[in-house]
């Protein structure tokens, strides 16, 4: 079953095309990361799914059905900013949210406990710090223990401890079999918690699929020798790497993460009569992968 299916979604704001025909599908039980730089259309897309923005073209389904208000009450959604009544306390705000969702009215203490706001539950929302507001928004999503959550930049404005807590929370929810759709521009965040990813760039879908396939790390081994031709000749008998390329006077070999063995490599070239004058391993960063995908 697809929890969410997005079909050829377009959105224009005047002359700006925020989404240019995005399609993807979120399977049940996935932690689905929507990754992209600022302005790539992540929030616009989640806004359309939440019916606060109107799609210019295209459609989407929720739970394999045409979208409706009663689907939204089954999904805990936190979009862009924590939206609460400033003059009301956390408890009263959550009472309103629970009444609208028609679920979770007796769940308020539990969700406040999860996000560590129990002590400030009677303070007005306007007195909260940015991080506390963020945590209250996540608490509101958890009301009624929904099976699906949509989180837009959930760790925005949180301190390192808060970020780690949210990450643990998401992992825990994942282990409970919940489906989580999460937008982020934080790569490590997506990499650490997501099972699937869709990468957006300027309103277009660059790639979507399993996170390990798309954001896979590689070891890059660079070798150099005085005689490049001899080096290349010796390299033809080398095994174990996934790809290679020439980079100036150096050769680069790409290995699956953790499989490059420099000693064995050195031995191989030496046995083939080539003495290396350069041998290093470079970790390909997630950032460079991200730039590669979005540039």
């Amino acid at each position, binding site marked *: 079953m697809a929890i969410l299916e997005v079909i050829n979604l377009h959105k224009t704001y005047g002359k700006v095309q925020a989404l240019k025909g995005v399609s993807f599908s979120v399977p049940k039980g996935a932690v689905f990361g929507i990754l992209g730089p600022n302005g790539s259309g992540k929030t616009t897309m989640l806004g359309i799914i939440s019916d606060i923005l109107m799609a210019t073209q295209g459609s989407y389904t929720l739970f394999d059905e045409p979208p409706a*208000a009663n689907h939204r009450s089954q999904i805990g959604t936190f979009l862009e900013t924590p939206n609460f009544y400033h003059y009301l306390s956390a408890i009263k705000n959550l009472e309103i949210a629970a009444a609208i969702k028609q679920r979770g009215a007796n769940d308020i203490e539990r969700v406040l406990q999860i996000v560590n706001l129990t002590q400030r539950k009677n303070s007005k929302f306007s007195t909260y710090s940015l991080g506390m507001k963020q945590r209250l928004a996540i608490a509101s999503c958890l009301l009624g223990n929904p099976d699906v959550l949509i989180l837009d930049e959930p760790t925005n404005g949180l301190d390192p401890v808060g970020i780690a807590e949210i990450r643990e929370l998401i992992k825990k929810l994942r282990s409970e079999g919940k489906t989580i759709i999460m937008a982020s521009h934080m790569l490590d965040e997506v990499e650490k918690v997501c099972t699937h990813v869709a990468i957006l760039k300027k309103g277009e879908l660059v790639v979507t699929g399993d996170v390990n396939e798309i954001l896979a790390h590689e070891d890059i081994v660079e070798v150099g020798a005085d005689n490049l031709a001899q080096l290349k000749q010796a390299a033809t008998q080398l095994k174990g790497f996934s790809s290679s390329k020439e980079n100036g006077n150096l050769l680069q070999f790409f290995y699956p993460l953790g499989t490059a063995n420099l000693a064995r490599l050195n031995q191989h070239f030496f046995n083939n009569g080539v003495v290396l004058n350069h041998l290093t391993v470079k970790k390909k960063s997630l950032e460079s992968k991200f730039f590669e995908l979005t540039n």
Partner: protein
Amino acid sequence: MNLQTNITVVQLLKIEWLKLKSYSAFIVISLFFMVGILASNYIVFSFKKNVVDKADPIGLVSSSSPYDFDFVWQTCSYVSGWLLLLPGLVLIMLVTNEFTFRTHRQNIIDGWSRQQFINVKIAMAIIVALAATLMVIVTALLFGFASGTSFAVTNFESVGFFFLKALTYNMIALLIGVLVRKTGFAIGLFFVYLWFENFISTLLEVASYKLKENYQFDAGNLGDYLPMNAADGLLRIPKTTLGDLAKKAVAMPHDYMYIGLALSICYLAIFFYWSKNRVQTTDL
């Protein structure tokens, strides 16, 4: 798309009440309105009793008080009608607060349909108008009995007109709130609109006079057909002598009362439709 959460009107209104009951501006304006109705009627009441009656002790000019039964419904409705900007302010804040706090989005994200969101606001415009009307009824009873006359329901239709006027003001306020979204700007526009309608009305009065002179076309002041004026025109100073002493009311000729009534209802229909359409078809 219109499949809605199974939520009753009562539940919707309860949620709206949760939002309002702790909102201090709402409480302050409501108190102002209630005290204002009592005070303004008391001023007129005591003016008649202490000034007019003393100048004319044997009742040559005025044998009856505007606060005697029969007249009291009309007088209270007319006098209280001047205070209807206050419930309008409540409606503006009720709507623009949602936009300010972006809770209009959250309400829909959490499972209301757009239709439910605007319907409950319209319901609040009706409820606030009903509450104001109830206040007028209580005040009328109070002053009616205070003037020592016996209960009568003659002229009670004025109270109905008051309700229509209150609803018109509330719906104009709601529409402005939905259209401009910013609290300060919406309140400003509400007052500017009020002034603007009177200004246009004055211009139309001149035009109406020329129409009458040059083309024998007489439909009264065309300005009286504008939304607020149409509703205002339904409420007039009672035809007691005090009414004649007061400045001539800016109102439609009596013949046009039914037109005014029909117009007010038409305008209300337009305001209902326009505000619903706005919320249901735009990005929030």
